[in-house]
């Protein structure tokens, strides 16, 4: 998505007082305690390992570190990750194809 479109969307959102994640297709991450992670608006998985899961999002990828990680369910735009989550790293990268 080109930059001016993003800006326009941001402007529309701010003038109409709409949440940004709806307009811009941004991820919304809910972290419950250290054991459950809810990611909305994801764009797919890049890596699944016991201690590291990489989730693709609109403008980059989310790197989730932890122990005995497991994706409980992966729906089209919603994902629940279970396990001991110690850190989440948000890497902004346009395209977000590679780690």
């Amino acid at each position, binding site marked *: 998505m080109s930059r001016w479109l993003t800006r326009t969307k941001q402007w529309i959102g701010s003038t109409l007082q709409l949440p940004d994640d709806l307009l811009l297709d941004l991820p919304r991450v809910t972290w419950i305690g250290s054991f459950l992670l809810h990611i909305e608006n994801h*764009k*797919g*998985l890049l890596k*699944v*390992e016991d201690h590291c899961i990489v989730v693709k999002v609109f403008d980059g990828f989310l790197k989730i570190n932890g122990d005995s990680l497991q*994706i*409980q*369910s*992966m729906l089209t735009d919603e994902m629940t990750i279970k396990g001991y989550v110690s850190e989440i790293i948000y890497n902004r990268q346009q395209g977000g194809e590679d780690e």
Partner: protein
Amino acid sequence: MKPTLPGTIGVTIKGKAYPVVLQRLYQQSVVLHSITSSGEDEIHFYLSHYELSHIRKAVFKTGCKVKLEKGSGLAFELEHAFKIRSFIIWMVIAIALVMGSTRFLWSVEVQGATPEIRQEVEIAMKELGYAPGKSKKSLPTENQISPILYKEIDQLSWMGLEWQGTKLIVHLKEKKGSTQTVKLPPSHIVASKKGTIQSMQIESGQAVENVNSVVKKGQLIVTGLVGREEDKQAVPSKGVVMAETWYEVNVTVPDKLVRETLTGNEKRKWSLQLFGWTTPSIPFTKVPFTSAVEEIKSDDIEVAGFRFPIKKKTTHIYETEKTISKVDQKAAREIALKVAKEEVLSLIGGTGKIQQEKFLHEQNDNGKVKLIIYFQALEDIAKVQPFSEETRE
């Protein structure tokens, strides 16, 4: 057909390019559950069995290996059940059929008594509803039908029903003794033949003739009108009148007897018959017998119940021998007597017997012996002649 029942399948994908597979599955909006890494470059997840077909597209040209686990869930449980479903269904159907069929009457067998009573009972039972194919419960009970049968069939003294599975056996006992209440019309007894009365046993009626009187054919012996002159009553006459009768029998016996006997030699020939056309018999050799008797048997050729239109024809040829025996006077007499006796006995009926026989005449003529034999017999000459009361004189 798209499956509609829930069921999940465990999938293991091994290969360096597994993220590509996951990405493709995500683009196809396939829902995945419990995605875990089960090793290096290896992930394991569950998905609904509807979406199994997407995996093949997703793995296409990625070099990943797909391993499917046995599915679990209602769909697979049902599928398993459906595999043995037909067996169970047929089992249930078979049991139901057997159990169901035992609730019906299949055949009625009537035993005992005379054929006439059996016939009557069969008809009556059918009218009462004892027909094959009726359910046992709908049938009337023994207590219900027996009074009806006793009433309808006079000669029936006892009946019992016995169930043998689906077969009903009706046991019958007929009445014996003085049960014949058939009303006979009033009748006379007249002589059926000319003869001398030897003895009379009159059960009913009044004798007109006495013992030792000679009666002609048709002459009144016992009258059915009994009582005084003023009020005579018409009764059916009954009785046995044994009388002496005479017979003259002409018998001719040839003095040569030609007998054909089998020697015991036998030849057989076979041929096939097809739509009325017969093949030549095998073997083709001529039968060496001078005189013979042929017996032809044709059998259907049958293989496992299927009847071919071909018949196997077997010809048995038995050799015969002609023997000519000369009959002397004594033997001729014996033969003639035997033949004549048989003839007389057939004339005088069962109760009669031959008292005396005598050769009246004997003559040899053109190779034949002619004999006239005289018989004196004792037989029942009573003949019941009904009359109507209006015409009595």
